[in-house]
């Protein structure tokens, strides 16, 4: 069987997901063994335009981006959104809630209209996405599992359960039970990260997006119960889930 041809592309983002791939350690060599990487600008000068699987990280944030992602979709048999920016627009979407004219002026002053910029959007706002690997940044183990399952002609496993499941497995004290409780989006956020943030003493900020049947009414009830102001709530939702309620 011929090795599948794989390409990596980046749009607006920190490129931390591609870097995570480059940081797979020994498994990176296994990856190079099992697929043919034909386009990986960050790591390679070879710009192959013939590929089966396209991993795309980053958000769509300019009109040029729209053209480029459409071209990639046309060529790719399988298109995978890599990481939060591609999946939910990630932190990039924070700016969607600011006045666009104002922030452009703030940044570029009188040259505000020189640069091409549109609202930050996830990849699937423009083209069809076959699979998602969520999280900011992606998890190495999940990426490897994803690739091996894809190579094995499987529909890759993506948990539908929330972060709480793995947080409990880890035996963490719930963020809402600490002497000074902190907002945690664990109950509505898709698991699979191993509850990495709560396990490191932080809160789940929702970077993996919502579970398919997230109970947002219950979340409202909970945050009200803890006296969280509406402003705090929205700020927190809008770390990664600016499109919450519309996009899961």
């Amino acid at each position: 069987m011929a090795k599948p041809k794989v390409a990596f592309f980046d749009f607006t983002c920190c490129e931390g997901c591609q870097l995570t791939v480059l940081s797979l350690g020994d498994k990176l060599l296994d990856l190079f063994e099992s697929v043919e990487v034909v386009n990986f600008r960050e790591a390679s000068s070879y710009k192959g335009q013939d590929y089966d699987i396209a991993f795309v990280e980053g958000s769509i944030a300019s009109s040029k981006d729209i053209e480029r992602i459409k071209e990639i979709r046309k060529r790719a048999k399988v298109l995978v959104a890599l990481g939060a920016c591609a999946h939910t627009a990630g932190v990039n979407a924070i700016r969607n809630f600011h006045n666009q004219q104002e922030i452009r002026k703030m940044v570029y002053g009188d040259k505000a209209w020189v640069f091409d910029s549109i609202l930050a959007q996830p990849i699937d706002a423009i083209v069809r996405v076959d699979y998602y690997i969520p999280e900011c940044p992606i998890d190495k183990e999940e990426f490897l599992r994803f690739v091996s399952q894809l190579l094995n002609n499987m529909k890759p496993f993506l948990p539908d359960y929330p972060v709480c499941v793995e947080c409990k497995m880890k035996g963490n004290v719930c963020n809402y039970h600490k002497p000074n409780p902190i907002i945690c989006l664990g109950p509505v956020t898709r698991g699979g990260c191993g509850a990495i943030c709560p396990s490191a003493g932080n809160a789940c900020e929702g970077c993996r997006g919502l579970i398919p049947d997230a109970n947002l009414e219950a979340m409202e009830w909970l945050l009200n119960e803890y006296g969280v102001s509406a402003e705090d709530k929205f700020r927190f939702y809008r770390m990664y889930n600016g499109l919450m309620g519309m996009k899961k």
Partner: protein
Amino acid sequence: MDQAESRRGGRLEKYLVAKTSFLKLVDEQIKEGKEVVAPVRQENQANFRRIKSTAEILWGGPQTVVSAKSFVFPPKEELLNYETNDEVRVQPRVEAKPLILLGVHSCDINGMALLDKVFTEKNLDENYVKKRENLTVIGVECLEPCSPESFCYRKDSVLPWDGFDLFLTDLGKNFFVEVGSAKGESFLSGLGKKATQADVDRVKKIRRERDAKFDEKQRKLKPKLSDLPVLLKENYNSPVWAERGARCFGCGSCNMVCPTCYCFDVRDCVELDLKHGIRARWWDGCMLTDFTRIATGEIFREDRGARLRHRTYRKDYYLFEKWGKSFCTGCGRCGKACLTKVVDPLDIANEIYERSRSR
């Protein structure tokens, strides 16, 4: 505890052991390289952790975040590994090593006693049984309620029914030690002296006082414990399920922390070479959406309220009826873990009871 005695066909030995010498015995075992796990403080709560000294043990603390079941039925457990070249080689994996579990509360001992039933019934689950056999369970009696959520007294679970090797009761300078097995007896290695009738009477008195205290402090269970299966059975269509379901995250936290939830998912993980891999099981939970989804996409228990009902019924109806024991030991973990306060089995039973009486 009486049940354990009668099942073993005779009285169990009881000893009086100086606390210092008991703890010294454990510390020596640790020095010899034995793995000892006990509850220790974790932030404002507790958790089971491998200890280096008995000084780390949190006696009489709140219930651990995760129950002791994780030592016999871990969150992730490899069941087999395989290699598929020209030949298929499948190697079952049963991992078990000796472990001393010290300071276990009755709710968790009883939880394991119940899991013993289900994992040995008909198709014996070797992965569970081997771990269980390697475990030395040293329980400790709770003399104060451990948390506002717990209701072990209401579930006849303040003392272990079965499933321990030693059970300690704090008598100040001494432990009153009840032996539950030959393994427990040999662990003691002749420490202490046989308990006298006076010692036994003293413990009886302590337990009477403790019962009174628990009765006063723990939340009441309004229906009779033995009536729960019938009460639930008659209230299948109670509005309670939908009302509570509306506020349920379906997050599965209650399943994860429960000492008697034992559902699991099985998945394969294959290496990039597609030739080597493992099959493992992970904790799963009936409160999770995916739990009943089949390949064609149908979900058989889609409604959160129905899932909540199923969980409650498993504890206090289906398995209660089947085994003659409630599968809720009143540890209170689920009630604590449930952030929107919908899952607590005692609350649910009381609410249903009240509503059915006012009908």
